């Protein structure tokens, strides 16, 4: 059963003000309805005027994603009635969007690249936020906060060319990184990237899943929905064309009410806004170095692997962090940052921006000098990260090494330890001599244990071999 996925990604642009009024978009730390004016509250008699910066940001994205910007585009009204929509219409773009086509080269299953084509990019305003309160049929009510009302969004629509939840996640990671590099989007603002997905099994009806409010939820939502659809096909149940909502907390999709399906949005051009003729601006818009270019530069400049470079450039902050510490020792910094540090950060849900650069740099230097083993270095890194998480002033790696006695044991002191381990494990020694694979690993492990990780496993293996030769 072939899976077909298309995505619609809504991204809040990080302009200072809303799309059609001068209210600040920096509302997340303030109470409800504190960043609203007659315009974004939809008071009678108010008129929208378009924020030029929002158009420039949207064009920047269009350029970076290789879209075509038509000579003429316009805003339209999408009419529907909901309390989060204070004018009872959303100003969006309909049949004349800002940008058409375009693509993103996405990492494919085989490590190569797969081009995912885009249908269009258009601009629109964000609705307000609803909170559901009360209980019982008559006791329930809705509370509305219009702070978000009117925040500029771009909607990026892909062709139905994604074939698995994993691929969709990688696509979103790539897109998110690109938007971050462009400086038009703030990934740390909650809800600044939201996804709707169209999912079908080839030969069957398509289902739209709305309300995926975090890009991390996408893979889970898609996996659930595909499993559901495949299950229905196996049971010979009919998949109906419908809209479903993703319930983040439960990880499931549920059918939207049929009433909502009766929408006839009655789009027509917004009479209060002049059309856009901005295609000639595109050439003037400067683009920064984007993830692919930076990845290629990392390979070139630092001599690191394609995979490490891809990981390190997959996030703007991570790439910047890497460049700060990489200069003297990229061959150590790349695997340490891409393989070890990133895992530790994910485990702690900690942003890379919180990692203390001098401490991390000093730690890599100790690794490079060979003064600690990898095992000890990981222990030191964890200690530093935990200290940061707990709000303490982190210790320098040198201090930790001294305090915990983590200096790598070398030469004679290890030889003695190895000798005693060999004496205590005659059976394993015999196995090794008999050519049993695995026995050597056991012996190395015993020495590591005895030295509390302060010895280098390669060195131990060599000493074992030397001693047994004698």
């Amino acid at each position: 059963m072939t899976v077909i996925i298309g995505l619609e990604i809504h991204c809040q642009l990080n302009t200072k003000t809303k799309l059609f009024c001068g209210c600040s978009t920096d509302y997340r730390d303030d109470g409800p309805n504190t960043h609203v004016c007659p315009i974004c509250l939809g008071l009678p008699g108010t008129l929208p005027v378009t924020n030029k910066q929002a158009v420039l940001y949207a064009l920047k994205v269009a350029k970076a994603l290789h879209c075509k910007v038509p000579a003429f585009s316009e805003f339209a009204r999408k009419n529907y009635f909901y309390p989060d929509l204070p004018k009872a219409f959303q100003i969006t773009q309909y049949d004349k969007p800002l940008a058409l086509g375009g693509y993103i080269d996405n990492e494919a299953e085989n490590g190569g690249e797969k081009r995912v084509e885009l249908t269009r990019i258009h601009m629109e305003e964000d609705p307000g936020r609803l909170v559901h309160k009360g209980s019982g049929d008559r006791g329930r009510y809705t509370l509305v906060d219009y702070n978000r009302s009117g925040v500029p969004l771009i909607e990026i629509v892909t062709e139905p060319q994604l074939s698995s939840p994993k691929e969709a996640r990688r696509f979103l990671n790539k897109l998110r990184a690109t938007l971050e590099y462009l400086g038009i989007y703030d990934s740390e603002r909650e809800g600044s990237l939201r996804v709707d997905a169209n999912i079908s099994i080839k030969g069957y009806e398509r289902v739209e899943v709305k309300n995926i409010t975090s890009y991390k939820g996408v893979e889970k939502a898609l996996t659930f929905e595909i499993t559901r659809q495949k299950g229905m096909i196996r049971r010979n149940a009919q998949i109906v064309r419908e809209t479903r909502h993703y319930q983040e907390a439960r990880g499931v999709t549920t059918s939207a009410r049929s009433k909502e399906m009766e929408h006839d949005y009655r789009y027509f051009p917004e009479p209060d806004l002049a059309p856009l003729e901005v295609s000639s601006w595109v050439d003037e818009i400067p683009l920064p170095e984007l993830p692919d270019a930076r990845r290629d530069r990392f390979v070139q400049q630092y001599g690191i692997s394609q995979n490490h470079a891809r990981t390190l450039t997959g996030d703007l902050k991570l790439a910047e962090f890497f460049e700060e510490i990489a200069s003297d020792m990229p061959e150590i910094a790349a695997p340490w940052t891409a393989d070890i540090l990133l895992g530790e950060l994910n485990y702690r849900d900690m942003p890379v921006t919180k990692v203390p650069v001098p401490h991390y740099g000093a730690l890599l230097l100790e690794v490079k000098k060979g003064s600690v083993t990898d095992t000890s270095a990981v222990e030191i890194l964890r200690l530093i990260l935990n200290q940061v998480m707990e709000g303490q002033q982190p210790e320098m790696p040198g201090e930790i090494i001294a305090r915990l006695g983590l200096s790598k044991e070398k030469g004679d002191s290890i030889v003695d330890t190895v000798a005693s381990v060999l004496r205590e494990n005659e059976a394993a020694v015999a196995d090794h001599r008999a050519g049993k694979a695995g026995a050597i690993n056991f012996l190395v492990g015993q020495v590591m244990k005895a030295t509390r990780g302060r010895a280098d496993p390669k060195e131990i293996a060599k000493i074992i071999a030397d001693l047994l030769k004698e």
Partner: protein
Amino acid sequence: MGSRYSFDNPDPHNAFITICREAEYGEGPLSGIPVAVKDNISTAGIETTCGSNILKGYIPPYDAHVITHLRSAGAAIVGKTNMDEFGMGTTTESSAFGPTLNPADPTRAPGGSSGGSAAAVASGMVQMALGTDTGGSIRCPASFCGIVGLKPTYGRVSRYGLIAYANSMEQIGPLAGNVRDCALLYSVIAGYDPRDGTSLDLPAPAPLKAEIAGKRIGVPAEFFGEGVDPAVAKTVQSGIDRLEGLGAEIISCSMPSMQYALAAYYVTSMSEASSNLGRYDGVRYGTAPDFVRSWHDAYSHIRKSGFGEEVRRRILLGSFALSAGYQGKYYAKAQAARQMVRNDFARLFETVDMLAGPTMPCVALPLGETSDPLSMYLADILTVPANLAGVPAISVPCGTAHNLPVGLQLIGKHRSEDEILSAALAFEEGSV
């Protein structure tokens, strides 16, 4: 600032929805002049209802751009005038606050939708008033009440704060007892406003002077076509003869797109209205919704109880004209027809300076007479072309028919308010 204007005149014609008995005023060209404002123009701190139950109790927290201008010109804003609900009518009878009576004959309607503003001026309660004109709503009541009313060029006066009926066509404009007062009020409200994206940045209006000699005035045959009361036609024809007597050159011409104008106007205005009027859910302002009902139930209910019949009719027809499967037949065709009207004006204005004809095809109607919506719509046939094209037009008293006032309409090129006001002044002074 600081002076107070006491306004405690009786209101026998029900011209006002809200009266401000003590109005502050300041220094400026309108210092101490009582000005009435149509109740679809937002006034900070003063209830603004659009003549509708659904907005009862709504107090805007901001002033419309024109109100800011009125205040800084020193005007005393003495009240908010009655109107057809949301501007949708030609009689002022669809107001939730009862009909306004025509001061020229209190058994008749004053015209609409700015009937309250026209009656307030015609009865002498105020010297001048603001109205709004989407398809003739200033010129119609000016004609029926025997006063002067100007619809400016689209974009000449900021719509910021004007509660929308049909955004692409409506303008705020002045009504007054004579051309000079009309021009004075116009000069105060005209100007660029960055908050209105359709606002025009133009030089201030020129000083008014009577000027008609040598002007080429086109008279389209269609302006005297079927449906125009012969008595009205005769009065207006004699008015046009007087223009000729004052030195204007009268040129017969034709405007074929007139056959589409009324349908194009109604399809466009109803479509835009169906969208504009969606916001009255009672949540943020206006009559509160029934919180026990679920959202769609409460919404559908408040729109049924809060809007009058004509408003609901237009919301339904506008929703239909925009709906899937019908948009091509109605809305899209109306836009194409609208362009034909613009093209016709552009062609005519290559050879003439302005157009003249009757403002309305009839005189003021007896109260309660228009029950059939289509026949009421048909009365707008002569005023809607100017709104479709965005050009300025003025109605100036031109005599009587059936002993009731008749208006002469002058339609100018884009941005030619000065020119049609000058012609209207010459006509007014020459015809005294």
